[in-house]
């Protein structure tokens, strides 16, 4: 994740540049996702877990501004038991061991 982009979407600026955007809310949408947690204490486990739990909800994408990218915050957890298992699965993180749905254009 590009953290600079993440920073740019936090706080009271939800990323909506137009005042008449239908996505403007009294509560900034990005506040729901990242709050004000991007600080030096973000490495604290309870803060990180809280961020992950908040970013996990995925049922209200219609509240987000269009044409923006959103990446759920990853936590350092659920690792494979050793380096051989990590290499065999293509990632150290079990959460990133996902099914591949890509296909060709034919």
């Amino acid at each position, binding site marked *: 994740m590009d953290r600079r982009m993440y920073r740019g979407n936090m706080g009271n600026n939800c990323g909506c540049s137009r005042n008449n955007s239908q996505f403007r809310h009294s509560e900034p949408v990005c506040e729901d996702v990242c709050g004000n947690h991007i600080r030096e204490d973000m490495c604290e*486990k309870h803060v*990180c877990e809280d961020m992950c739990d908040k970013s996990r909800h995925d049922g209200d994408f219609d509240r987000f501004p269009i044409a923006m990218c959103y990446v759920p915050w990853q936590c*350092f957890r659920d*690792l494979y038991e050793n*380096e*051989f298992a*990590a*290499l065999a699965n293509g990632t150290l993180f079990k959460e990133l061991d996902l099914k591949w749905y890509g296909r060709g254009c034919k």
Partner: protein
Amino acid sequence: MDGNNREKLYAFITASSFVCDDLRLFLDTHPTDRAALEYWDRASQARNEAVMEYTKCYGPINSYHVENDCKWAWVEEPWPWEGRC
């Protein structure tokens, strides 16, 4: 027996290098994550020690680790098309 140990050591270097690469990607966006930093210290140390042991016992894995003892030892290792890269 020695060849078996060599293969095991090389396999560990391959796997531990992958873990370090994956950890680096995580740390690029989580530079203050203490658990990840501690894991990096352990993983990179284990990887570096394995590379040092392999280099000492079997020869250099990359050209930066070649120690010239009146001979360029890099070319004595198998080439990629000979089964190792």
